């Protein structure tokens, strides 16, 4: 099993619904977020290009945060989901410094927190909350090991990119372009 997410940058309008849904679903403390919207603007008027991306933890195959964690609190769970065991985390910050995507933050309670791909929903067969609420249906979540899953199909059909592949992290968040 290899969970992954595809983000259609041509459909995303940057409404931030995924951000709010995540904060509500996961009781993210006020002022923090586990996912966010990036807007890029390139070109010179009148030739302008905008790309909107809904970003979160990339649940890397070669996760530097898991590698540098001194206690094993950061670990790779079923399906390649990168998770933090709160009662093993000492809050040293090594994983936060090791993430090229800045996807982790120190929770006010002390431990390190991040996107979980809504593991608690996924294991019951539901979609992550950001995917479930997206009004433009630009987020696709599923199992890459299953060739017939929605995410496998869309990655077969569409051109895509990942973020900072040169960091060697093998990110599992695919941006359709």
């Amino acid at each position, binding site marked *: 099993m290899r969970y992954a997410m595809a983000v259609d940058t041509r459909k995303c309008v*940057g409404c*931030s619904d995924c*951000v709010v849904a995540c904060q509500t679903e996961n009781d993210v403390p006020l*002022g*923090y*977020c586990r996912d*966010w*919207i*990036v*807007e*890029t*603007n*390139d*070109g*010179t008027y009148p030739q*302008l290009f905008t790309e*909107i991306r809904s970003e979160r933890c990339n649940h890397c195959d070669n996760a*530097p945060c898991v*590698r*540098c*964690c*001194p*206690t*094993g*609190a950061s670990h790779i769970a079923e399906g390649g989901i990168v998770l933090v065991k709160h*009662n*093993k*985390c*000492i*809050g*040293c*910050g*090594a994983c*936060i*410094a*090791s*993430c*090229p995507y*800045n996807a*982790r*933050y*120190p929770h*006010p*309670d*002390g*431990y*390190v927190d991040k996107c979980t791909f809504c593991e608690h929903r996924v294991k019951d067969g539901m979609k992550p909350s950001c995917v479930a609420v997206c009004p433009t249906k630009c987020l696709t979540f599923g199992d890459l090991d299953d060739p017939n899953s929605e995410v496998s199909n869309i990655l077969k059909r569409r051109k895509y990119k990942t*973020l*900072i592949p*040169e*960091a*060697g992290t093998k990110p599992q968040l695919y941006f359709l372009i």
Partner: protein
Amino acid sequence: MNEELIVSGRNNLMVDPQLNIWHWPIALYLFLGGLAAGILFFAALYYILGKEKEYSTAVRKAPFIAPFALVIGLAALFFDLRHKAFFWQLYTTIRLQSPMSWGAWTLLVITTASFIWCALHIRDLFPEFDWKYKFLKDRETFFNKHKKALAWVMLVFAVITGIYTGILLSAFNARPLWNTSVLGPLFLASGVSAGAAAIVLMSKQQTERLLFTKLDLIVLGIELFLIIHMFMGYLAGPQSQIEAAGLFLGGQYTAVFWIFVITIGIILPAMLDVMELRGFHIPAVAPGVLVLFGSLMFRFVFVFAGQVSHWLY
């Protein structure tokens, strides 16, 4: 135009707008760890070489700084943890891929060794000292009998501790400034030069001071060489590292790096060392204090500048 904005408003504490997860306690600890490693390295080395009497400050007196430095350093590390009650989780596992994990175990060994070493030499400071209980006296005889083995353990673990303070940072590929393998040997050299400086400051014996002034000069030379090497690596590297080096070459850390670390911390004390060796009369404390100051500033500059450097997206 080419701009990239987070439009949903992200303001995660200590992560935005730039990483700020490690603060002064980490820099202080890296300095104190390096200093203790340098001192214990020389103590063990000159004990193994059988020069205990000639260089008595290095072997007997200076090591008393080490346990204090290590305990204060460890306290600083603990202070910078955000989930303090769970710190013991460090000692429930050994994860070789995580420098912080094997570093924690190394610190456990070197701190214990430094305490034992000081206990064996406590009569050099307090001649009247008595261990009182038979149990403690037995332990003293035991370690005195195996002092050579203890010195070897200390020598090896002092080197590991010195290198570890650098590798702790260089293991992060996400921060291009830290991500250079020169950082391990460079931090070791910086720690060893700080150790030699501390011994020069404490020693009252002319031959010993001259020897450690010479050693200090050599290590400062190595340090300078490694720093040049590091910049060559950055500037021949990918854009992310060219921009990381730019922090020191015109960027926001230029002044503090070239004035405090290079000029005051390396070149000035090296010149004073040369003058001292040539027979000029130099205030005894000057080069030592400058080297210690430069070593401390080096850790501060690197810890903070590294968190500013980032990948390009």
